[in-house]
């Protein structure tokens, strides 16, 4: 047996049940849609998602490509990890940037996080989906991440302009997903809907899934701004007068664009340390996401526009 914990019990642990459910969802999408794509953010949830997709079709290769919507502001470690990971596993990767917005100089310093996110993430994503003619896009979002996600379907229906309407979502009963769409319409699929942060990390440990080293503590150059610990990842960071990056032992619970990601002080250097830290911690992982704090219900607004 390959799952030592469950040997002989004829009962799956909750992690194996979640795994089996996610694989079922991924296979349903591959079977019912013409052009699926997997939205790859290089974060831990993406890593778990890709791992599950590899399991779903083994020994065949993934029947769909990965899509990285790149703002150009990710951590250097993330780009390096991404390139190494896709090369190692022979995965097809599409990288898309909203070049017009970049040419217009949209950046995380001069523009509000709403404007920045809309141009470099939401719009960029919609462009990439349209260019690729993709009718289903896998995402790693989980329902426990944020209140407005608690009602998200596994198959989240999007209209022709890629937008989400809470009144236009289909009821999902049993494991029977209705994947029928008209031309131009698409769905976002969330195979990790029922996972929580602890499940993800425990699965990373169980399956030895590689993740970006930024999740683990190291001495990094940090400035403290508006209550967030920001790691100054390259020369583009605009320091305010008096701000001097100082080495601090930090790590990240969620990864995104480095100027908008808050680190936490930590000594966790292994997945096991990290799980232990989480069991002690009393803060939700989105706390470090600068963009969520803009307004009450901000995630819902972004989702209506087409953001994940």
């Amino acid at each position, binding site marked *: *047996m*390959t799952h030592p*914990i469950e040997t002989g019990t*004829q009962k*799956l*642990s*909750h*992690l*194996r*049940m979640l795994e*089996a*459910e996610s*694989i*079922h969802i991924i*296979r*349903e999408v*591959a*079977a019912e849609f013409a052009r699926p794509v997997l939205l790859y953010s290089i974060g831990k949830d993406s890593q778990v998602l890709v791992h599950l997709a*590899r*399991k779903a*079709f*083994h*020994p*065949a*290769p993934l029947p769909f490509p990965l899509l990285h919507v790149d703002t150009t502001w990710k951590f250097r470690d993330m780009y390096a990890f991404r390139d190494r990971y896709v090369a190692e596993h022979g995965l097809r990767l599409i990288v898309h940037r909203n070049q017009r917005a970049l040419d217009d100089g949209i950046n995380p310093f001069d523009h509000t996080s709403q404007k920045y996110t809309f141009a470099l993430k939401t719009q960029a994503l919609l462009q990439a989906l349209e260019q690729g003619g993709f009718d289903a896009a896998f995402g790693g979002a989980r*329902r*426990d991440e944020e*209140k*407005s*996600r*608690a*009602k998200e379907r596994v198959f989240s229906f999007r209209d022709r302009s890629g937008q989400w309407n*809470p009144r236009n*979502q*289909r*009821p*999902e*009963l*049993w*494991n*029977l997903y*209705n994947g*029928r769409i*008209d031309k131009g319409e698409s769905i976002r699929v969330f195979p990790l*809907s*029922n996972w*929580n942060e*602890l499940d993800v990390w*425990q699965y990373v440990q*169980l399956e030895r899934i590689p993740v970006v080293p930024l999740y683990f503590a190291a001495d990094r150059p940090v400035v403290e701004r508006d209550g967030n610990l920001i790691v100054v990842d390259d020369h583009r960071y605009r320091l305010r007068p008096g701000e001097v990056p100082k080495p601090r032992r930090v790590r990240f619970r969620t990864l995104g664009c480095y100027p908008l990601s808050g680190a936490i002080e930590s000594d966790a250097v292994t997945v*096991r340390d990290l799980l*232990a830290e989480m*069991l*002690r911690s*009393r*803060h*939700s992982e989105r*706390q470090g996401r600068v963009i969520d704090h803009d307004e009450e*219900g901000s995630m*819902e607004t972004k989702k209506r526009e087409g953001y994940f």
Partner: protein
Amino acid sequence: MAVAAHEIEEQLLIRAGKELVRLVIIGSVDDGKSTLIGRLLYETGALYEDQIAHVRRATKNGDPIDFSLFTDGLKAEREQGITIDVAYRYFETGRRKFILADTPGHAQYTRNMATGASTADAAIVLIDARLGVLPQTRRHAAIAALLGIRRLAVAVNKMDLVGFDERVFRRLARDLEQFAAPLGFAQLSFIPVSARLGDNVAKPSARTPWHQGGTVLGFLESVEASRDDPQAPFRFPVQGVIRPHLDYRGLAGQIASGTVSVGDEVVVLPSATRTAIRAIESFDGPLSQAFAPMSVVLRLAHEVDASRGDLIAHVGAAPAPRSRLDATVVWLSERPLDPRRAYLLKHTTRTVPVQSLAVTSRVDPETLAEHPAESLALNEIGHVSIRCGRPIIPDPYARSRATGAFILIDALTNETAAAGTVGEPADATDDAQPGGRKIIVIEASDVLGAHEVEGFLSENGAIVAVVHTLTAAKACAAAGIVAVLLGRPDDDALPGDAIAIDPRIVGWREAVRALFFSRTDSPPPGSKCSV
């Protein structure tokens, strides 16, 4: 807070082996459902400090913490002050991880309730102690039963507002017990609760010394989860074919029920092709055995034509393909059931066109009475008779949720129009004929084909006659003779165990053999089917 390293290790180890339990919580507006859920999340440590701080800020000054604010999600619903959709909450205790479907319970939201109940192992129904058992409470219990929930906790909330009066609680419990008796719950637990103050939610209340029935959390921790029974018949709906190269062909799917081992003799339905399990494969290596709900890849011993929508089962314990079904449906669409509209039926991984959809009766969920009806509107429940353009391979829902459930999709708008549960074949008793012989009627598309079928049946020891009218076919069937009926009569008049064979389709012999001759000792109940 310092936690010793060995305690963390222990927690992680325990967590790795936790049991997953799915729940649905049903209550009407103002029953205090959001408050109870918020309280459960709070008491089990599922909330983080920043979330708690956030809710403290949003709670009106001077009030005790408003637990309902932990769960109200969408802006629209906060504005309306009601819950408008199914929300999923996650929390865990020492040995279980819970997925809680939070469903609103007013009359117009039956569909949400059905959605939440469809996957649940157990349900919590909320009642306002001041209001007693309302028609909607009866509806909640009935829908839970309909969707196969066998274990129910009734949380009688707002006990603080009736002075924790035992008589109020007892009267209410008696009323609901009476109504629920015919619904056949295996467990019906009543718990007096104040979600706002925390009585009997996680800790036994000192204010209800007369109550020995435990707490809400105690119920959740101890309720028997509908476990996947390894002894259940093996069912494997094929999701897709894995074909990395010419020498490898695997069938991907999630085991819907039962257990399968390498070497098992199986049948691929609906073609009824017999083969055996050559290998069970997973990313982590080959397995000698697999069981529900594992997602695996099966490789068959022979090059057989199996693909998405087919079902693999053990020889001798296979369900019969059926194109006529009696079912119970909950109508989910704003557009009422219209027999002239085109619908698709999705069952497991198989989607087939619906040829006819007729309402037999509408069920009043508050009284369980059946009323004559020709259509069903949004949130209505009814019994229907369905004829599919191609067969599906179902089990009765009461025996297997995974292979007894289906949805109807509006072929034009693509919306999910209804959710259905397959009933027991109406005339299962017809199978119990003297001598154990299977009585069948076979339609055939042409004379040559009919005689081919007749010859094949005779060779296999059946007494056969080719007939041209339904009356003659029925007479033969009554006399224990297999009737090969030419042409397609009105389906509604066909006996329940009639099956349709198209002799032009390769593999019909295997189908007939598997359906009738491989288990003459114990014919399966009912086999309304076509192959």
